[in-house]
């Protein structure tokens, strides 16, 4: 079985596109004079989602831009800064850049433009605008402008990491990435020595570099030198011949049947050969053109980048693969060494390369070539993972500068899928589901009218009807199954997420996947990705302790995160559990008090754990790109509740945290119990119903004369009367004639009083919001057998409503 990774890409493209559009409209709506906090939050969430997705899929350029964007937004959101028109403009520009990047990725290319650095810098400047008093914004704007007109300069940065508090690989990596936002950065050091040597190719001036460094150290501690550009181009010229070596191999690599020498065969042990690595490049098909292009390149305006690229290659050559050991923060890169894809070692795309290759290896074990059809990878029948990885590598930052020109007239195409499946838009499937739903309803109506007929006289009608029933039920099942997909579609991205996150935090974590075959609705699968991503990253960041701490606590050094999916009744349960430190009750309560969240004295654990779902609630001391902004859990809960699901947290100090997500099997169909209240019918989802009882008079009690409770098995449950909540206008019938339905809500159990239980149905969920708006206490509507509309009750909201009303 092979899973098409590009399918996930498509999801990301769509999601990111939607998020960008939403962000833009929210920005346009934002009133700078009186900013609405909710709008700012929404913008922030959109940016955060894009960043998360981009990070997961290795579109590091997008992640970088959104990170900067997010930093500024975060400050606005926390009201540390007041939004200005300038900021909104900058956000919109950033949005445009992201759109272009997205577009480029979608076409399997890479977006390279001075605008990216410019926008990032602008945003950063805005984010710091209240701190950097020494620097007048106007002058620095001028500076930026003039600088961007210049061609890229090569800066060489030398420093002793320990001396400036950048001792750990993680910290170095952060700085490395921050600098990487200015341009292309590479590590020239050997890692062994006390000093780091980085080369930055950027259009930004010394000022911008110093500004970033100023965060970590005194300017004097880092030595910044320019490297003459001519030197680089000279290198290129001398290098041209050697460089040809790469390209000549390229054309031969299109097919594995190449009779060429071993050098061209895409073999996993490519490290021995070293530079076959262009074979997967999108430009490969144009290999010959490329050869022609290359000499030109040395005299084109693009020269610095190209020159740098080849210079890099040279370094690689002379250094062999030792090069990599210095790549900051990259245990992963070390692992890659034997693969030999290190050529991009110092480039911003490195992470991606490493990650891709790494994923490949993981997949190897699992048995699928998950990344093979990665965008940008040419249609290469050389299914060898090596070529897949290099293909992906080629679409990272460095390659396309060449490729973009070589292949400009002949854009690389996405790989065509060859397996026997078709991709149909979800809309079409939904339409099909709707139609089948209609058919089922029509059948029910027919059956209703035929019920009065004499079965003997109308035997054929009756026979036809029962056939119709069977067929439509089969049809419904078949159509629903189109939407069902194994949850492995989301789960499979997590080995990568876990590895990356753990590595960047210096923790040891293994991931265990259980029940990947569990099937659920595709819509749900897509929407699960974000929340799960947050949960897993949270678990690694906050849950799992550092190896030393784990050992000290008598636990194995390596933490374990388990992702488990299973069917339970009519719902799917997805659990994320870790064996980390668990939630800290005191810390949570202290934080709640600080944020002014009202909590009763000595609240039960369950209530304390729910605190983590508050917007803006984070107990992390530092904001990292992994967590700490307090947005994650808020989004998690929101997303899951949007899917009619619920989240539960359970935690034991020192033993770990267990998060359970309960979801309906599908978004489109619901198992429900129809209940009558007066003239109206309502549907109660079966998943929330625990039991139904005929009440006795002594079970009804009141509190303070008003609040009604029902005593059920020694427990007093709040009672919700549909008549009260929905102001039916009719006199409430004697509760003793009604039925109490005990339901499970977010806030514990409750008893719902209805007039009568009617029947159990499978109902097709229709949205009320399509043509109307959200109605409190109701999650949707459906059409009953007689063609009438019945509302589907949302018990959580009902309980809230009833509390307010009472």
């Amino acid at each position: 079985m092979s899973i098409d990774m590009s399918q996930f890409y498509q999801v990301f493209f769509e999601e990111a596109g939607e998020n960008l559009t939403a962000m833009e409209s929210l920005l346009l709506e934002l009133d700078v004079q009186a900013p609405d906090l909710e709008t700012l939050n929404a913008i922030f969430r959109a940016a955060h989602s894009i960043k998360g997705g981009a990070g997961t899929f290795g579109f590091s350029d997008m992640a970088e831009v959104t990170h900067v964007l997010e930093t500024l937004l975060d400050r606005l959101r926390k009201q540390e800064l007041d939004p200005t028109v300038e900021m909104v403009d900058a956000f919109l520009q950033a949005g445009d850049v992201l759109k272009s990047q997205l577009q480029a990725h979608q076409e399997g290319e890479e977006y390279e433009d001075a605008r990216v650095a410019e926008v990032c810098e602008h945003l950063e400047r805005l984010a710091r605008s209240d701190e950097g008093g020494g620097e007048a914004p106007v002058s620095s704007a001028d500076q930026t402008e003039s600088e961007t007109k210049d061609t890229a300069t090569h800066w060489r940065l030398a420093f002793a990491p320990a001396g400036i508090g950048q001792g750990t690989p993680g910290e170095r990596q952060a700085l490395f990435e921050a600098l990487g936002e200015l341009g292309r950065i590479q590590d020239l050091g050997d890692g062994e020595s006390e000093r780091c040597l980085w080369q930055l190719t950027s259009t930004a001036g010394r000022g911008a570099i110093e500004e970033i460094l100023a965060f970590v150290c005194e300017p004097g501690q880092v030595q910044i030198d320019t490297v003459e550009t001519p030197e680089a181009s000279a290198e290129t010229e001398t290098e041209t011949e050697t460089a040809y070596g790469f390209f000549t191999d390229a054309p031969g690599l299109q097919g594995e049947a190449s009779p060429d020498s071993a050098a061209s065969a895409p073999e996993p042990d490519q490290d021995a050969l070293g530079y076959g690595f262009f074979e997967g490049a999108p430009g490969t098909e144009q290999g010959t053109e490329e050869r022609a292009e290359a000499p030109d390149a040395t005299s084109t305006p693009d020269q610095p980048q190209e020159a740098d690229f080849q210079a890099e290659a040279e370094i690689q050559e002379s250094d062999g693969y030792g090069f990599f050991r210095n790549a900051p923060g990259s245990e992963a890169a070390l692992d890659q060494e034997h693969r030999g894809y290190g050529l991009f070692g110092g480039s911003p795309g490195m992470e991606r390369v490493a990650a891709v290759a790494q994923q490949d290896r993981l997949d190897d074990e699992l048995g699928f070539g998950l990344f093979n059809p990665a965008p940008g990878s040419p249609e290469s029948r050389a299914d060898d993972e090596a070529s897949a990885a290099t293909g992906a590598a080629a679409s990272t930052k460095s390659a396309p500068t060449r490729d973009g020109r070589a292949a400009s007239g002949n854009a690389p195409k996405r790989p065509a899928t060859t397996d026997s499946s078709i991709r149909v838009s979800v809309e079409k499937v939904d339409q099909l589901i709707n139609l089948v739903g209609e058919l089922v309803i029509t059948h029910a109506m027919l059956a209703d009218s035929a019920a009065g007929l004499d079965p003997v006289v109308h035997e054929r009608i009756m026979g036809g009807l029962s056939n119709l029933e069977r067929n439509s039920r089969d049809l419904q099942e078949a159509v629903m199954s189109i939407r069902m997909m194994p949850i492995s579609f989301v789960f499979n991205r997590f080995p990568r997420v876990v590895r990356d996150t753990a590595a960047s935090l210096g923790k040891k974590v293994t991931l265990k996947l259980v029940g990947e075959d569990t099937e659920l609705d595709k819509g749900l699968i897509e929407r699960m990705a974000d929340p799960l991503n947050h949960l897993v990253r949270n678990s690694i960041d906050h849950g799992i302790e550092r190896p030393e701490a784990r050992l000290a606590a008598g636990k194995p050094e390596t933490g374990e995160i388990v992702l488990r999916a299973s069917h339970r009744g009519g719902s799917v349960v997805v659990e994320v559990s870790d064996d980390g430190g668990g939630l800290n009750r005191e810390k949570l309560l202290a934080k709640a008090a600080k944020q002014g969240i009202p909590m009763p004295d000595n609240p039960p654990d369950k209530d304390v754990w729910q605190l983590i779902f508050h917007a803006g609630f984070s107990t992390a001391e530092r904001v990292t790109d992994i967590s700490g902004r307090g947005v994650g859990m808020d989004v998690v809960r929101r997303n899951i509740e949007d899917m009619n699901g619920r989240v539960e947290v359970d935690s034991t100090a020192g033993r770990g945290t267990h998060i359970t997500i309960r979801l309906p099997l599908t978004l489109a169909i619901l198992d429900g119990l129809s209940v009558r209240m007066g003239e109206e019918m309502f549907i109660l989802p079966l998943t929330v119903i625990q039991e139904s009882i005929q009440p006795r008079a002594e079970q009804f009690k009141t509190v303070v004369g008003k609040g009604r409770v029902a005593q059920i098995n020694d427990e007093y449950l709040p009672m919700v009367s549909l008549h009260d909540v929905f102001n039916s206008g009719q006199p409430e019938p004697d509760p003793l004639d009604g039925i109490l339905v005990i339901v499970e809500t977010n806030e514990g159990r409750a008893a719902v009083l209805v007039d009568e239980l009617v029947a159990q149905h499978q109902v097709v969920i229709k949205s009320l919001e399509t043509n109307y708006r959200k109605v409190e206490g109701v999650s949707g509507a459906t059409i009953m057998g007689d063609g009438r509309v019945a509302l589907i009750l949302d018990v959580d909201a009902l309980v809230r409503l009833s509390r307010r009303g009472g």
Partner: protein
Amino acid sequence: MNDERREGSAVATDSAREYLTFTLGEEEYGIDILKVQEIRGYDAVTKIANSPDFIKGVINMRGIIVPIIDMRLKFHLGQVEYNEFTVVIILNISGRIMGVVVDGVSDVIALRGDQVRPAPEFGSVLDTAYIDGLATLDERMIIMVDIEKLMTSQEMGLVDQTHLAVA
């Protein structure tokens, strides 16, 4: 403000446009026919809790859930009774489908922009924001309603305002 409106309608209606007219009590109203999807009888509606009285509820129209608004209740006009002659005009307003109950549908008329006169201001007595103007046809006065503006207004509460902003 009146000038503005006149200008606006003159630009928009160089040639004649068609309007569907309907009656509410003694008054005759006209709406842009392009916004009308169909006309059907009044069916049993499902009430929606805690909604204003002029929102009668929702109906199932071939699998689509459609809210029904009684204009007679909204404008406090006419006898509110529901029988087999009660008519519902199904509107399609920027993709959203909704039905309005009226006393009766009379005609489809064509009007040029210059035939529509601006409505006088009624001050606080009557909100004329949703009234495009008044037209005369065979001695009858027809009140031209900007149905889209009316139906998406906050006052009607038919549409989540946030939803509108995004859409």
